[in-house]
């Protein structure tokens, strides 16, 4: 399904992130990571908790300046762009599934999903997506009245509502039962096969995502594990 002739939509080389902790202790959360993601591809970064996956994802989403290395997104240097340009990029072309249940507790399910859509008719599109995810009857519920699985599906729906060319998903199926996990996996794979790039970071078995590439992340280092 992949088109190997196309240039990667996301390419990072020698990416590192150093945090200074208390007592001038230096923590290298990501150490010289390199990665490629092309259209139609699903790439999985697999690693245990604390291995640096989320830090890597934040840098790829344009929200965390790397200490060194480069990120080329859609053939442009991501951090060569201004903060507002990166913000617009996220609004228009990047979808992010956050690891925690980051939902606005005072907006109903449909409004939370519509938050990810920068134009009018957001609610109509949100209702369509909720229907696809089996949440049509929950559209007017506040998040705290919904189960963990339902909320996880909301996060994915919100990340997909604007049909992003790049989807970055952090633990998208974490703590979900088999059935809910399968729904989300299918949705992510369909999004990639529709011509977009999907990067998933997870501590779960990467095979369930039918990935084109799997990277293993350990103590901040990223290694291509399988194709």
């Amino acid at each position, binding site marked *: 399904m992949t088109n190997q002739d196309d240039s990667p939509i996301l390419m990072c080389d020698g990416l590192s992130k150093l945090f200074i902790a208390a007592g001038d202790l230096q923590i290298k*959360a990501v150490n010289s990571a390199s990665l490629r993601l092309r259209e139609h591809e699903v790439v999985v970064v697999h690693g245990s*908790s*604390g*291995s*640096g*996956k*989320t*830090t*890597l*994802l*934040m840098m790829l*989403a344009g*929200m*965390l300046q790397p200490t060194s290395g480069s990120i080329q997104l859609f053939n442009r240097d991501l951090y060569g762009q201004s*903060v*507002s340009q990166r*913000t*617009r*990029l*996220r*609004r*228009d072309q*990047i979808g*992010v599934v*956050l*690891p*925690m249940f*980051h*939902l*606005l*507790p*005072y*907006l109903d399910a449909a*409004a*939370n999903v*519509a*938050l*990810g*859509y*920068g*134009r*009018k*008719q*957001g*609610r109509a599109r949100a209702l369509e997506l909720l229907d696809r995810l089996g949440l049509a009857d929950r559209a007017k519920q506040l998040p705290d009245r919904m189960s963990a699985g339902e909320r996880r599906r909301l996060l994915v729906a*919100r990340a997909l509502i604007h049909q992003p060319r790049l989807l970055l998903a*952090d*633990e998208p199926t974490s703590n979900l039962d088999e059935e809910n996990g399968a729904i989300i996996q299918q949705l992510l794979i369909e999004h990639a096969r529709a011509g977009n790039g999907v990067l998933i*970071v997870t501590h779960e078995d990467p095979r369930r995502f039918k990935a084109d590439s799997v990277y293993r992340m350990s103590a901040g280092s990223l290694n291509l594990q399988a194709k």
Partner: protein
Amino acid sequence: MTSPISIVVAEIRYRKLSSVCSAVIVATAVAAVIFFMLLTDLAADRTRTIQRDIGLNMRIIPADTDLERYWNKGYADGWIDENLLVKGIEQDVANRLVPMLQRTIPWGDGEAMLTGLGDELFSRGEKMKPVFGGIQQEAESLTIGAIAADKRLLREGDSVKVLRRDFTIKRVLAATGSVDDIRVYASLPVVQDLLEMPGKVNEIRALECQCGADVDDPEAYIQAVLEPLFPGTRVIRQDSLAEARRKQRMMAERIGLVATPILITFAALAIFGLAFLNAQQRQQEIGLLAVLGKSAWTIGAIVWCRSALLGLLGGLVGGLAGWYLVNQFGDYFIGAGNAKLGFNLQSLLIGGALGGLIASSGAMLPAWYAARRDPAETLRGAG
């Protein structure tokens, strides 16, 4: 798209306690400001009513009087023809007219204010009890002020010489704490004779002047009536109860001037604190909005609009509360009366605007802080 304003409204409804606290702080400050503002207005209205009902006391003096010298010495150097007084019958603004002739004279080892009092002329010839009735003099007697008497150890019944004539002290007045304490009152013809100024006066007191209508400037109205009747004179105002009321109103204004900025600053600081806490409490939401591509401006506007909207609502409630309080308790502050202010749309609008202004200025910095938060930091979880 979920609009920023729908986010603001939903958040206000969701966090009711914090929203109500913000609105109540603004409402309290605005109510106090509106209360002082309306109280000042009410006091001004009351002053006008008192001036109309009780009347102003005016002084008619020679037109060429140097007022600086007049107030320094306590009397005019020039003079007015006593015969002009008969024209007083043609006016109906002053209840009574009292002709006077005053001069500072050497008396013993000091000075006294020799004051000749003529008969009072009443409006439209009506018979009234004279204001100066208690000190109207027979030809050979005097009434003297408390200080003038104490200094010379004089008592009622004593005989004294003033200028070249002997008098009997008929009455010693109680101390008043005014220039009246150094006066030596005699009848007008006697003083005219002593000062060799027959037929002359240097002041006519026009007492209890009434406008007969609720005019904005009763002083100007009275001057316009009296000055043409007494050519060659000018009419000036004497301190009166109405003046005391005016001073009271000015005091209320001064209190308002001091209290208003203090209250506004207090409310803005409280809103600043609450907005800051709100921004802290919502840091994950703010991070989320940044992840979803909301600009720093939009995020700042969401935090700022929340406070501004609550400030507007609190301000409207405060405007109403201030109006209600002044109607309930205004008389307690400004004295007798039962004046009520009708419903005042202006105070409602000013309250709303003021509340919005207080809250939005207090939320400026927290909004800026929220907009500048690093989304990665606020959202960082397991990784």
